[in-house]
């Protein structure tokens, strides 16, 4: 078996995998940043006092979570142009990833905020801190500590989901495997190489989380 596994071809395709690895990295990073912004916004809308805005946020979160990412991606890729909105492939991909993960992050952030004891918030109110100051100094720092592990989980899902962007012909890691497969007919080598690079990103994320968690050790009081 193994003698037919062709390492030489992998080395030959390494530059392609390298550039596609970088593409997956930056598409995912951009998607994640967008998801964080959208998720924070959606969460504050959802738990805010304004009823109508809360309903809009809840509708967004529900509809994303109840439909496949692939359908969402195709909607943005094929649907938006038919409505007259033209975006580049990369922008479409990032938008789909950000909107999708944003809905999950909104719920993660909400759970994090709600895990903070009401008593502390009350103590902050009693000492005269404003809503913004309470958010900035009391709620968010702790919510981030509590939500870091589930956020890491979502970030890993997002990286894996970015594989779907190969379907709108973005040159990312999965696409690299496809290219190698179709040019040399070596699916084992091609997709295994893709998988190794995904594993690399996974360990990077895990390491980053462990590092930041160490600095937040006292927050789990």
């Amino acid at each position, binding site marked *: 078996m193994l003698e037919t596994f062709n390492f030489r071809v992998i080395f030959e395709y390494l530059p392609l995998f390298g550039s596609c690895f970088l593409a997956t990295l930056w598409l995912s990073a951009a998607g994640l940043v967008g998801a964080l912004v959208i998720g924070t916004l959606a969460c504050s809308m959802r738990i805010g006092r304004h009823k109508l805005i809360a309903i809009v946020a809840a509708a967004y979160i529900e509809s994303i979570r109840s439909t496949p990412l692939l359908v969402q991606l195709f909607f943005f890729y094929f649907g938006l142009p038919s409505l007259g909105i033209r975006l580049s492939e990369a922008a479409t991909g990032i938008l789909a990833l950000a909107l999708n993960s944003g809905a999950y992050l909104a719920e993660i952030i909400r759970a994090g905020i709600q895990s903070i*004891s009401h*008593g*502390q918030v*009350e*103590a*902050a*109110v*009693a*000492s*005269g*801190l*404003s809503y913004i*100051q309470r958010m900035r*100094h*009391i709620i968010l*720092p*702790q919510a981030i*500590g509590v939500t870091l592990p589930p956020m890491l989980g979502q970030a890993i899902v997002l990286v894996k989901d970015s594989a779907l962007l190969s379907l709108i012909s973005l040159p990312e890691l999965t696409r690299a495997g496809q290219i190698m497969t179709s040019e040399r007919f070596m699916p084992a080598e091609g997709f295994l190489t893709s998988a190794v690079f995904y594993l690399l990103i996974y360990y990077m994320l895990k390491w980053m989380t462990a590092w930041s968690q160490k600095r*937040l050790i*006292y*927050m789990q*009081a």
Partner: protein
Amino acid sequence: MERYSVQRAMIEFKNVHKWFGDLHVLKDINLEVAQAEVMVVCGPSGSGKSTLIRSINRLEPIQKGELVVDAMKVHDPKTNMTKLRAEIGFVFQQFNLYPHMTALQNVTLAPMKVRKIARKEADDMGRYSLEKVGLGDKLHQYPAQLSGGQQQRVAIARGLCMRPKIMLFDEPTSALDPEMINEVLEVMRNLAREGMTMIVVTHEMGFAREVSHRVAFMDFGELTEIAPPGEFFSHPKSERTKLFLSKILTH
């Protein structure tokens, strides 16, 4: 023990009412607490003691009547609450410290953010407040590293660090193990001696007897009896007060 002479009214309730939905929790409260006065409030659970002192800094808004604190109208929605709250330290039963901050950070946050004091000066004030409650050696400990009694003392220091005119205590020793109660009461005794205006919801009758100027009994949302401690304990007027005292003094 020497007690500060009592001066102008610092807190004044006039015909104050409060409802939670249909539940009438404060019924026609009339009460004046003078500057430098120490008042203890006791009464059965659910009688409205917490609501009473939480209304003073509008943690609970009142629906009827007038409530004037340090010449500011708490009942008036236009009153600047930030300014009022800066003058009132509040100590909770459950301490409610910020777990992600050290003791020093806990006590200096509000002085820096609300009073806009520079970090260096706030740190000095924070150190001084923590020394005052006997925790000068715990400045950089997190709440989780402190005992219950120490945490509650940090909470008191957090109030003091704002240089408040009033300190309110809502059952500050009820959540503590018995051996830690006294260290907290000792800090409160010292505050009283220095002339801090205080309202203390507590069932520590030794503290009431020794430190307070007056003791109030709260029952079903009403202040049914207010008297100096000597009189309150030796000649309680109503049967309900007698019954309550017999219950808490026997154990």
